[in-house]
């Protein structure tokens, strides 16, 4: 108690210096928080958009499907499974799919395509697929006898809305699958892969075509953006029959995106690291000044019977107090900043907006307000201030009382 009080009083002996030092910590923390929050927000948004078209945050498929993505590794649609999944409060949507490959032809053109059997209603709730229609119309129900094509694929096949597409593929248990469909609409997708290859088909039509009634390749699961993926994956896996089903996360299914984010984050960590390094020098300088100008007093304290350990502890507390003062102000500033931009988000305009939309990503800048960001910054500052206090502490341990008193 006495030591805390003493440390607190000591840091205010030179108000201006303490304020300057704490302010520098404040700006470092604020910058780091805003920076992390911005990049995390952008990542989260990117992930959300990408997985909403592709894998989902988590995907449930039959055990073994991922290694051999064949129609024979499908499973029976199961309402009970849906109920179990939707019971989890973190799960926002589920999207059953039957995903196969087929040969598409129109007139004299032929191309291998990805046939996505979807529930058009469930799908549009998640990824606004209907908004991406550039010609014709979106499919309405699971049994609609029509398909929607990626714009790039349509261009390749030289096909227009209302033309008839022929699909040839392999059905369930080596049966053959062939069917004709009216092209109801064309869709423009940011992901070129999909845009050039995808055929969206109502799921019942797809099941019928493949002779796979009521069968699915996967159920994609959408979650709140800020959910802890690992934990949820585990809890979902535990809640369903693990002999039949396997749960995979987007990180496993789209490792490229995960790696990209990791590499990008590393660069950001380096920038923030440099920032903290610079600030550390300021704090260190202040700590050195604080012991050099107080040498006489420190000598007296040792002379009258204060253990050097206690004295070093006081200096440590002083270091922690100055930096945490700045840190807390920075965290509060960061929270206000992020709150503000959550209420009034930044809408991108001009070219940037187009680039985003071309990739099918919402052109709004989100700031992540994950508590992890604030906790990390506080911990970093705390650790830095403790590490920096080692040198003054060491100086105190070496102090000779007579010399100190005479200085």
């Amino acid at each position, binding site marked *: 108690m006495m030591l805390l009080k003493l440390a607190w009083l000591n840091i205010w002996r030179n108000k201006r210096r303490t304020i300057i030092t704490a302010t520098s910590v404040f700006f470092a923390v604020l910058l780091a928080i805003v920076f992390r929050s911005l990049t995390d927000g952008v990542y989260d948004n990117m992930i959300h958009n990408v997985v909403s078209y592709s894998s989902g945050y988590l995907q449930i498929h039959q055990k073994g499907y991922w290694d051999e993505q064949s129609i024979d590794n499908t499973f029976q649609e199961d309402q009970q499974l849906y109920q179990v999944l939707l019971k989890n409060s973190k799960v926002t949507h589920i999207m059953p799919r039957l995903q196969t490959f087929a040969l598409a032809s129109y007139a004299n053109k032929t191309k291998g395509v990805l046939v996505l059997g979807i529930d058009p209603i469930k799908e549009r709730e998640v990824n606004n697929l209907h908004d991406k229609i550039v010609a014709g119309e979106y499919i309405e129900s699971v049994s609609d006898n029509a398909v929607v094509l990626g714009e790039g694929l349509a261009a390749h096949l030289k096909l227009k809305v209302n033309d008839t597409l022929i699909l040839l593929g392999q059905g369930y248990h080596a049966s053959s699958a062939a069917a004709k469909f009216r092209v109801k609409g064309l869709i423009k997708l940011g992901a070129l892969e999909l845009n050039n290859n995808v055929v969206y088909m109502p799921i019942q039509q797809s099941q019928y075509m493949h002779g796979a009634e009521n069968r699915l390749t996967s159920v994609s699961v959408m979650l709140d953006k800020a959910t802890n993926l690992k934990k949820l994956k585990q809890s979902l896996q535990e809640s369903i029959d693990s002999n039949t089903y396997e749960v995979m996360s987007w990180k496993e299914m789209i490792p490229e995106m995960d790696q990209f984010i990791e590499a990008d984050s590393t660069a950001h960590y380096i920038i923030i690291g440099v920032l903290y390094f610079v600030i550390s020098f300021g704090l260190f300088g202040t700590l050195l000044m604080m012991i050099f100008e107080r040498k006489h007093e420190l000598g007296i304290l*040792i002379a*009258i019977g204060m253990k050097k350990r206690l004295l070093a502890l006081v200096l440590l507390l002083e270091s922690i107090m100055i930096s945490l003062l700045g840190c807390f102000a920075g965290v509060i500033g960061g929270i206000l900043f992020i709150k503000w931009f959550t209420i009034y988000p930044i809408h991108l305009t001009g070219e940037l907006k187009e680039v985003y939309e071309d990739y099918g990503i919402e052109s709004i800048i989100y700031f992540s307000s994950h508590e992890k960001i604030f906790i990390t910054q506080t911990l970093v500052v705390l650790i830095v201030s403790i590490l920096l206090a080692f040198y003054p502490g060491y100086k105190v341990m070496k102090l000779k009382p007579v010399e100190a008193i005479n200085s």
Partner: protein
Amino acid sequence: MVKTIIDAHNVSKTFNPKTVPVHAVQNVHVHIEEGEFVALVGPSGSGKSTLLNMMGGLDEPTAGSVIIDGVEITKLSENKLIDFRLHNIGFVFQSFNLIPVLTAKENVGFVLQLQHVPKMEREKRVLTLLEEVGLKDKINSKPGELSGGQQQRVAVARALASKPKIILADEPTANLDSKSAANLLDIMAKLNKEEKITFLFSTHDQRVIKKARRVITLVDGKVASDVQQTPT
């Protein structure tokens, strides 16, 4: 029965032994008994501070030993020595004795906190001590708000707080005007009488020397004379 409280035995101190040796204190023998009121005098550079520092365990002699109340402090480890000082020796230095951010009361109480004296007892003792040095009305003043003489009196109160066996004071009046110096000495003499605390102080001031009951004179690091006197 008188008890030897300080026994400096054949103490020597040489600074810079390898380069330009300075023999600050040479083969000094000093015995001081409980309750004595001793002035250590001598010309500048004669070794007064050096000897006091060694007696207080702030500095190590190059040779010889210092025994305080039967404990050979020259043999104690650093941490034991700090603890020994906390419980047995009070110090008053020439100036800037106090922690500037704490009030007079807190400064005096500080050593008691280091000794883990409970709050109630601490408060009582601090008030008694500050009253004894005549600063009852200044208990909540910071050192910066006190005169030099008042600061030294707080320092004396602090030195007394831990109930030490001896108080060592290196030129406690050097920065004081003669009136404050006399006042401080009177207080020290009173405490010496009433609380049986042994005082050993160095000084240049003739009027201060007169108040001592024993005067040890150092010249060139050696004891030149050691006389008893009647204080005036």
